[in-house]
């Protein structure tokens, strides 16, 4: 059988295209993507360890509120940290008396619905950033962030 050289060359050319094409199978292998939107807002720190006298009362109350009310109700607090987390953090950073005053002040800000979207930095898509550090009356801890700035924490 006489092989036509032209066809033979063409065959080799096409054959090598076939064997060397798409060698990186890893990129195309099967994967299991998740389309669930992650919401770190509800990642609670269910901690009942007693570090100070106030933790005996405050931590069980806050944990119970998170478990029975807040987690069921959803991420409805417009702020980050949420009002209950704000209370827990402010008591941890100061003391139960100052922390309670900070909470009442935060609750006033939470109740005020006028112009707050123009007033606070943004945390994620839905929340307004209002950290405890601004309200401890320690001027060195105040790191002013202009309104409407997006925070990536």
């Amino acid at each position, binding site marked *: 059988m006489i092989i036509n050289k032209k066809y033979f060359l063409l065959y080799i050319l096409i054959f090598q295209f076939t064997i060397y094409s798409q060698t990186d199978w890893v990129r195309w292998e099967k994967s299991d993507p998740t389309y669930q939107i992650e919401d770190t807002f509800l990642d609670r720190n269910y901690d009942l360890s007693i570090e100070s006298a106030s933790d005996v009362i405050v931590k069980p109350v806050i944990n119970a509120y998170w478990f029975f009310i807040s987690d069921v109700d959803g991420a409805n607090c417009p702020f980050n940290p949420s009002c209950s987390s704000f209370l827990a953090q402010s008591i941890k950073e100061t003391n139960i008396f100052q922390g309670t005053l900070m*909470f009442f002040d935060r609750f006033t*800000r939470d109740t*005020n*619905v*006028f112009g707050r979207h123009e007033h606070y930095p943004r945390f994620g898509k839905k929340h307004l950033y209002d950290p405890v550090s*601004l*309200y401890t009356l320690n001027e060195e801890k*105040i790191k*002013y962030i202009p309104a409407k700035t997006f925070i990536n924490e």
Partner: protein
Amino acid sequence: MFKLFFLITLLSSLLFSQQIDFSSPLNIKLFADYLFCDKDYLRAIDEYEKYLSVFDDDSIQFKIAVGYSAINDQSNAFKKFSSIKKTSSFYDQSRIEMLKSLYLQKIDSSYFLNADLLINSQSPFSNNAYRLKNSSLLLIKNDLPEKENFLIPFENEEKNNLSNFYDLKNDPPYKSEVWAGIFSAIIPGAGKIYTQEYGDGITAFILTGLFAYLAYTNFDHDHPTRAWIFTAIGAGFYAGNIYGSVASAQIFNARVNFDFDEGVKLFLEEKNYFTPTYDFCK
């Protein structure tokens, strides 16, 4: 005949291909210049470094430093500017650029030392250094010199801005934390209104008033348990508002400081930190 033609074509394409030597120093420089003018500074610096490995060229060293400065790598920019020799025609420019790099890194004693050296030198940019130094005095906590002395190096058109900054620095429009607390103690929410938190002030007034009214009516109608609960909540809102007004005054003052610093920084940016502009891409 066909085979001969085929061979000639093939051989000529092999022999005469790539006659341009893209890796020659001159072409590397041309490519680097193109990248530099295209503001692709990082790649331009790489190409200029290749060129510098063959030729010693102070203008290229200066362009590398300008490139680093443009991408805000001030540490490398400072190193490159400081490597410019005294004999170079770019020496004076490199000194003021070094001062700019130091300013953008940190305003510290080393920055002021370099500024004073340049101000007291014979450099044509000593007045620029003086202006940069005085402007940056606005951003630190130290007391400012007398206003007349402070404004000496600036041009007339700049004096207006600098005079305003000077006055704001010496007498910032702060809100008193004590007054904010006192106002809220007298009328709930008044402290917040004083610190321009109008919505929060009105809300605090309504909440405290509402719980005070609920407590009063419950006492009046002999419901002491409910009355005491409302009293406690009302007292919480009242005291929390006094506390919050003090905190609000602190935040207001932090905002004043922030706006002031941003204003000065923006002014300096607009003035290009009193450094000359270079037209390497004409």
